[in-house]
């Protein structure tokens, strides 16, 4: 237990009477596992991350649903793999724990989807045929034109789409796909000539000579 937590437990009024050192009165047990703080993290963050990683949010069924949905949203193509191949379901699992306000919309959204699929096809989403799954997704993939009985599903699907895209394009695979080539020591010397030409733009005379 950390010292801060010890102090939290003591009523404020007790301070006035404290004659004994707090430290000796309640000896802190040694930390069970020494926590390694990764570079660039504050201690409280490292502690928090370790705790979150030890928790599980999704049930196996929910995780399977998230996996199928994320691969419908970002499938593999000639250029790169699919969302699940880029580790998106694990990222979504983490975000549920990291930002708990996501939990009800996600868990409830999956339930909504299963309820609706059971009504339409007699089975929860992941057990539906591929054709049925796509038929369902078509109903909720376009929020502006979703039918009145599909709007909650459309909101859930937008959440899935946004989390999937965020997770995919911030993965190693996704960054390669999108073509981001920075984050490395570089010498910026302006927009490449052929790009300037493409857009009919040019640097000013003084800019060409700056730093020379």
């Amino acid at each position, binding site marked *: 237990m950390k010292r801060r937590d010890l102090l939290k437990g003591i009523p404020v009024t007790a301070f006035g009477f404290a004659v004994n050192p707090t430290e000796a009165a309640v000896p802190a047990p040694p930390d069970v596992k020494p926590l390694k703080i990764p*570079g660039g993290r504050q201690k409280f963050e490292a502690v928090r991350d370790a705790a979150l990683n030890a928790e599980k949010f999704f049930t196996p069924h929910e995780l399977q649903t998230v996996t199928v949905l994320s691969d419908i949203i970002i499938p593999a193509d000639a250029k790169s793999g699919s969302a699940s191949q880029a580790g998106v379901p694990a990222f979504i699992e*983490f975000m549920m724990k990291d930002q708990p306000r996501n939990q009800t919309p996600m868990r409830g959204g999956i339930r909504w989807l299963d309820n609706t699929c059971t009504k339409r096809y007699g089975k929860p989403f992941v057990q539906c045929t591929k054709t049925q799954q796509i038929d369902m997704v078509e109903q909720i993939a376009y929020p502006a034109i979703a039918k009145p009985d599909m709007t909650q599903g459309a909101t859930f699907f937008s959440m899935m789409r946004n989390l999937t895209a965020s997770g995919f394009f911030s993965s190693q695979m996704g960054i390669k796909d999108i*073509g981001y080539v920075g984050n490395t020591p570089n010498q910026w010397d302006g927009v490449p000539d052929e790009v300037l030409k493409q857009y009919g733009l040019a640097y000013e005379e003084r800019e060409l000579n700056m730093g020379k």
Partner: protein
Amino acid sequence: MDPFQIKKAPVEYDVAIVGSGAGGGMAAYSLAKSGAKVVLLEAGGYFDPADPKYITQLKWPWESPRRGASTTRPFGDFDAAWGGWDIEGEPYTTAKGTEFHWFRSRMLGGRTNHWGRISLRFAPDDFRRKTMTGIGEDWPIGYDDLKPFYDRVDKLIGVFGSVENMPSEPDGFFLPPPKPRLHELMIRKGARSIGIPVIPSRLSILTKPINDERGQCFYCSQCGRACQAYADFSSSSVLVKPAMKTGNVTLINGAMVREVLTDPASGLCTGVSYVDTQTLQEVTIKAKTVVLAASAGETARLLLNSKSGRFPNGLANSSGVVGKYINDSTGASRSAFIPALMDRKRYNEDGVGGMHVFTPWWLDNKKLDFPRGYHIEYWGGMGMPAYGFGWGIEAMNGMLAARDGSKKPGGGYGASLKDDYRRFYGAYIGMAGRGEPVPLESNYCEIDPNVVDKYGIPVLRFNYKWSDYEIKQAKHMQDTFEEIIHAAGGIALGNKPGAETNYGLEAPGKIIHEVGTARMGKDPKNSVLNGYQQAHDVKNLFIVDAAPFPSQGDKNVTWTILASSMRTSEYIADLAKKKV
């Protein structure tokens, strides 16, 4: 040991400095160089952007389980700020009807580890607004008083920019600015076509090396993560470290100063008392001179909490002005999509950590219905994807025709959606106005009578409302943003903020340029400090953060904090020499 035992440090220092941000770092540097024995008290922990323990620069989004999301750090997982809008155990409150946000960093270097590095001088007119317009307050000093210090700060710390000869944006000693990025060229072309100037930005980033201690910028665009080459300005790496090398500085981290101590007989400061944030012990430090640089808000709090029989309203507060006239920059923004940038060629356009161009204030307020100006900052380009990438595409991809010219409703899934992310990458831009507010007596911070922090120190309560001046300025910003966006061939995103949201005017505090809580002036009846940032009531008490500033121009304030801190520190050193 009894944690409440008061430990007395045996030595008496020449100067005790509270806070190691822009103001405190410069004071430590200048005073240590002059030979003074300095103790630098910093509430937060030690930080060095070149120590792997602290480095976040050049990390990839997948090295963060939340992909850089802002769950525990307001500007994202890799940002160098320890602290933020809310710090556990260190609350602040707002009076009814006030929305105020207070950004605090608890670390060596304060908020300069992750600040935007926009380094602008105030112009001559920024010091005499009252004379010019009849509202607000003049400074007791003018541009000529600060100019030599601005010049020296430019050379000591380094800033890039271009000579423009604009009276409202005085030139300095500039390193070469980086060339504009593609979207910046488009914005510039568009803005200029409607008479709005766009010039190279002025950031404290070393595009050329200036000494052996600091490297040159290698264009990673991540100054907010703090630079391991020390190529951008942070007080920690650029001022505190060299100051410590003199051997004249004792740095104490984890020292949360609670009170400035005074001698009841002479009314002079004798030192400060702080809480050790690790052991919770109370420690007293003796010093001949006390320099406060805890940031405008914390400095006011410290003064107001330093009550004694002789100073019943708080220290240096016989005027009752401490806490009053707090003012933050105005801010409003708009983003846009540039269809011409769809499907653009990929290349590394990281550039420096910030914009390469900006728009200085270009109009005459005499011809407008609001009295103060603003500048415009820009962003956009092919940045590193992170948490939030592609978010909200359902509101975008229905507006634009697909590759084959067909239109589909917004949202979607599958191969064509995946393609949309690729096509739209790097085609977004944004802009934000940063304007000068009118400081008002009715905007103030005070001690909350009921609330203390975890150290038992009474906390600040903010009272702040924008006036019509700022709201009208924000309206003008929004009109201007749309004109620039259209002139640059863009589609403005979202609805144009209107009267119901004060034209998108951010809540006070949000722009993180709070100043003015212990303003300087000629008259001790309505000011706290004289023109050397020395307390009228307590001659050995000085303030070197932004608390002394009667106003803040439409310029981000840090360069002026640095220049005025250097000026005050040298004044302190001169006084000491005269005594000897």
